[in-house]
């Protein structure tokens, strides 16, 4: 069996499929299906495309409920559980706050500016039924970005397995879902990027099943008055969170790992660590002082050897 690699670009990030297969055509055929499926999700839930589901819902905010299919309903249901489990910190309606917190920001916003936007945030205001969803105020917005990428990683994994791929993984911009171990039975070694030195790995995690996702407060930030502000915004206050630098979580499914790590970041340093400890998943969290926490810490030494 040979290992085949298929790099592609989707959902705003570099992606890659790695399959072991007997024949090149088999691997190519499955990769084609998987990439097409990733594109389907990308178009369906894009915020930028005119006829995406997301755009339809957002354009009808304050006007009328929109019919949704079962897949969209299921994803929204999942987002709702994240909202409930995070006490409102994980909120897919918080995207409107980007109007204030964007790369062009050079000065701190005034309270009144934030306040008008915070009023447009709040999953609890959304009316979700079995086949419709309604954003009750003009200007409210849904953003599927926080859940869909991880869910696509899971979907492609299931898809590859059902096409008889047994060894390989799916990597969507660092959200990695394992199809099965390497062909010799060895686990894959997944490197975790160093939060302050982007080209080096701070840890290497050996994984032969499940998924691992990494989220970081380091990825994007604003410098205002010589201070770092992370791109992670508390949806209740509208202000950036002083979060952990990086959180990696290992779970059965990428969507679960992804929401656990996102919620950890939104909670800030202290509560974020407490949240991680309360979840049953293995994790590696790096705080602002570059101190590592979690049960994956002991994998770090290995990665130093890799460097």
């Amino acid at each position, binding site marked *: 069996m040979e290992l085949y690699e298929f790099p592609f670009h989707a959902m705003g990030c570099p992606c890659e499929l790695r399959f072991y297969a007997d024949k090149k055509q088999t691997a190519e055929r499955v990769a084609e299906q998987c990439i097409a499926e990733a594109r389907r999700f990308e178009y369906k839930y894009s915020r930028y495309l005119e006829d995406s589901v997301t755009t339809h819902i957002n354009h009808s905010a304050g006007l009328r409920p929109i019919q949704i299919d079962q897949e969209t309903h299921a994803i929204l249901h999942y987002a709702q559980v994240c909202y409930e489990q995070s006490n409102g910190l994980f909120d897919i309606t918080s995207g409107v706050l980007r109007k204030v917190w964007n790369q062009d920001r050079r000065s701190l916003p005034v309270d009144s500016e934030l306040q008008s936007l915070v009023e447009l945030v709040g999953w609890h205001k959304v009316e979700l039924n079995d086949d419709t969803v309604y954003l009750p105020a003009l200007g409210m917005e849904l953003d599927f970005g926080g859940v869909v990428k991880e*869910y696509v990683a899971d979907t492609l994994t299931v898809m590859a397995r059902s096409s008889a791929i047994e060894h390989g993984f799916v990597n969507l911009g660092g959200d990695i879902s394992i199809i099965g171990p390497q062909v010799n039975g060895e686990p894959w070694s997944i490197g975790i990027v160093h939060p302050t030195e982007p080209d080096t790995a701070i840890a290497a995690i050996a994984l032969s099943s499940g998924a691992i996702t990494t989220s970081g407060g380091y990825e994007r930030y604003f410098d205002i008055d010589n201070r770092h502000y992370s791109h992670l915004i508390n949806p209740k206050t509208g202000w950036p969170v002083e979060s952990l630098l990086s959180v990696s979580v290992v*779970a059965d499914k990428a969507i679960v790992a992804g929401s656990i790590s996102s919620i950890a970041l939104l909670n800030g340093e202290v509560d974020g660590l407490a949240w991680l400890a309360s979840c049953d998943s293995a994790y590696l969290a790096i705080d602002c002082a570059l101190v590592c926490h979690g049960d994956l810490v002991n994998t770090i030494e290995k990665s130093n050897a890799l460097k």
Partner: protein
Amino acid sequence: MALSTAALSLPAFSASQPPEIELSLKTSVYKEGDVPIHRVVSGSEERYEIDIQQFYLLTPVARNWSLAFNASHETMSGASPWGTVPGIDGRPTLIMSGATIRDSRTELSVGVNRYTDNASFGIGFTHSNEDDYEADAIVLSGEWDFNNKLSTLALGLSYSDDKIEPTDALLFGRVQKEDKRSRSFSISWTQVLNKTSLLQSGLSVTKQDGYLTDPYKLRDVRPDERLEWALSLRYRKFFENPDGALHLDYRYYDDDFGVHSHTVQTAWYQNISEQFQLVPSLRYYSQREADFYLAIDDFTLPLIVNQSSDYRLSTYGAYTFGLKGIFKHNNWSVNISLDRYISNDKYALSDAQFKHPALLDFSLMSVGFDIRF
């Protein structure tokens, strides 16, 4: 954990999850207590002992299709009641079969199921073979989910074609070759009531026709048609504390032989640890006798008049006390169960004229093994 549970309802994990292979084995010993010797006028007081071996395999064959095999083999030995005559005290006394009867039964079934997102359909065939009895049956089944899978409607249809060829027919003047058929219909509705409980209500109707008489009894004449129906309720409720599940089942049964019965069954599944479960259970059963039941065979009645002294058609009640232990490890589990059945006319809800001397007590012990992969 709530997030993992929530993720399970996403389409990627519900639709394309490959079904698992399930394999189960069970071996059991069933032993009836002896008949009281002073209530036997002739024959052996030793009753049935049965060894039972069972096998079950469920395997996916293609996307959305599964195949199931079922096999069981029973070997039995012991004596059975031939009839009753009045004893010195006027109470019924048994005539038992003399020599120990030895027989075995083999049953084989194969079934195919097709699954869609909200429904499943199945067809199955069963063949059962004994020295003196042969049966072929076909079963059709369908299940439909409603209300986001909170409700399930299930329908079943079956037809069984049975042939009876009693042993030593010429020697004892028994019938030589008879047949009977049974057609059965069932409907059930399963409803999730809330996060921790569900209820199933079911109804089944069975119509038998043909030779329904027991060919081994000295005098047994039964109608050649029997219409049976049963209503059942099955309730499941989980308790976080003390981490266990309650099973409560009730069945009402009625037929045109005049028998009607109530069955109440309850079990408690207690989780002792991640790996161990203990299940005490209790069953109560009470039936009213058939219209043509006679405690003592009446050999003076013409052969066209229905009569039977079969204890199974008498008025009685019974309790079953059971205890089961289930040990789970990874993808396999082992279970051991012990059941004790006692019956008596005094346990019945209605009064019986006499206690039938052949009323049963039995013990049933099983060891089972299950694996999924």
